[in-house]
């Protein structure tokens, strides 16, 4: 089995799905001849031609707007937005249309669209290139939000997302693109949306994370026994059952994310536990997150992002509590 990094695993998923289903098309800025600014679509334009791997003008609302029309007509567009910060000009198309067309038309039209976009910090890039706005999308009914954390799961989750009958925001942690290689099988396999996975089992603390922060957490828990680590993978709808089960077992939950704390997705996880599992909790639910500031430029980004030290401190606090 080939050892692939995340870029390669996603590329493979795209290629296989395009071979399987002629209705799958790719569009976005620089996705064609250039193969995408991170090379995620490399080789696809050569293989499938410019009718299926479509370089668009520089217009994010336009890209997602036409994707919605394509999806309603019967295609399965996979749109790339160059960085998640550039979904902001397209939020109206996502919030007012992609997520609502099934509802507004009472099922007559649907939007089987995947929006792929790099997210997150740690790559020393300019403004708006390191955003983590996942919570915004999780608040909007009608869209699903998926964040893979390793090449293997990226492929399985992307295939599921493409086959999903509803719009999926597929967030790819830029920092992970080339960080890890693992075995990624060729050919069809899927990983269901809405399911988390236990990466490490333990009885004392539950740590919840997704995407790139999962690896920070795994680093942080090295050398600690009996710590459970959950990779959420789908944020919306998230796997309440796995979370509850773990929280019930450990009684101590720490949530780690890159986004600013206030109204980050951690808030929903914590509130859900505070509402439905409080009885089992032995300590406050802690959040280790980005600060409530504009994501700083490279010189300060390492201070902004949750660190191994901050995660360990939370673990110590929660145990001492």
């Amino acid at each position, binding site marked *: 089995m080939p050892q692939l990094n995340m870029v390669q695993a996603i590329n493979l998923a795209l290629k296989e799905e395009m071979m399987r289903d002629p209705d799958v*098309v790719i569009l976005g800025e620089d996705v064609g001849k250039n193969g995408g600014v991170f090379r995620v679509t490399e080789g696809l334009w050569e293989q499938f031609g410019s*009718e*299926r791997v479509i370089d*668009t*003008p520089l*217009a994010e*609302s*336009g890209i997602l*707007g*036409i*994707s*919605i*029309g*394509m*999806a*309603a*007509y*019967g*295609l399965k*567009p996979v749109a790339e937005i160059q960085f998640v910060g550039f979904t902001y*000009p397209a939020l*109206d*198309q996502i919030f*007012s*249309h992609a997520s609502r*067309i*099934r*509802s*507004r*038309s*009472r*099922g*007559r*039209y*649907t939007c089987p669209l995947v929006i792929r976009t790099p997210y997150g910090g740690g790559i020393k890039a300019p403004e708006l290139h390191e955003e983590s706005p996942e919570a915004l999308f999780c608040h909007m*009914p*009608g869209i*699903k939000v998926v964040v893979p954390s390793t090449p293997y799961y990226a492929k399985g989750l992307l295939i599921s997302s493409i086959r999903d*009958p*509803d719009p999926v925001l597929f967030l790819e942690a830029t920092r992970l693109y080339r960080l890890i290689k693992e075995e990624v099988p060729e050919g069809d396999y899927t990983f269901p949306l*809405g399911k988390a996975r236990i990466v490490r089992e333990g009885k004392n603390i539950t740590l919840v994370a997704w995407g790139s922060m999962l690896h920070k957490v795994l680093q942080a828990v090295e050398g600690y026994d009996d710590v459970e680590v959950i990779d959420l993978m789908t944020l919306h*709808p998230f796997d*309440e*059952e796995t979370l509850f089960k773990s929280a019930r077992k450990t009684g101590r939950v720490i949530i780690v994310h890159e986004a600013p704390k206030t109204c980050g997705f951690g808030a929903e996880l914590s509130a859900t536990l505070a509402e439905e599992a409080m009885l089992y909790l032995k300590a406050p639910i802690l959040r280790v997150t980005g600060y409530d500031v504009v994501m700083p430029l490279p010189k300060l980004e390492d201070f902004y992002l949750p660190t191994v030290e901050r995660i360990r401190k939370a673990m110590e606090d929660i145990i001492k509590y």
Partner: protein
Amino acid sequence: MPEKILESFEIRRLEILDPKGEVDESLMPSLSADEIKKMYELLILSRTFDQRAIDLQREGRLGTYASILGQEATQVGSAFTIKKSDWIFPSFREMGVYMTLGYPIHQLYQYWAGDERGLKAPKDLNIFPICVPIGTQMLHAAGAAMAAKYKRDPIAVITYFGDGATSEGDFHEAFNMAGVFKLPVVFICQNNHWAISLPRERQTAAKTLAQKAYAYGFEGIQLDGNDIFAVYKGTKDAIEKARRGEGPVFIECVTYRMSSHTTADDATRYRSKEEVEMWKLKDPILRLKLFMERKGLWTEPYQKEIEERSRQIIDEAVKVAESVEPPHPEDMFTYTYAKPTFRQLKQMEDF
């Protein structure tokens, strides 16, 4: 001037039928007597629908309603050229388009009464639901056109919007996509002179809306939107061009919103009686009537008959609309996703 000239443009306006009912025969499209009568009947039906909607709203039987009064020719004339295989992306003030295409009229009332089930188009009609956020639907039209092109379907995609919509960013992105990809899409602007209280002249400093198409490398043309023959001819040419794969066209139909913006608006606050009176003289229905009278296609009894028939159709539609069972609260959850989420299932237990 020693500088080079790179490009030059001319913006044209098409008129065929004048307010007195006279036509320019050299431009007159070929239409049978039956077709012309059918058009006329659809105009009357549209106006009957509209008046009834306003009455129902006053009685509290509909929610806020956006009248099409005065814009019937733009809507009927353009929709008259659309085939079942074409796709249509309307805005929110196109009841005449829906009716010309044969959309179930009771569903229109259902929608305006606040029931989204009214927006579910019948299987054989590719019309999108009413679009509330202004200007956004043009991109869906461009996307559908792109998909049709990819699938080699020889169809046209038609999208409607108002003069106000031309100011939104999505208008620009849709027009640009259509130009770049040479999409089979026809953009129809109902320039009814007003966007709520903003007059057309303050919506944009361009003299015509039609000229905006040249910014995207394709043709724009202005029509007299109260002249059903000009509308018919202009849209037919454009739609056929699109179906042939020769790219997009932008059609500016100059018409007038005779009533307030919606039943919640009071247009006397911001526009003059004189302006409205002046436009009454250009009424699109009156004009066609005069033409038909001259051609021996219109008589008093005919008028009575079609008014009566329209009334019956509308009565029936209202009856059906109002006899439909109200939606079940669970309906809220049914169409968020193909399958409800865990959390939704829990929430549905409230009902």
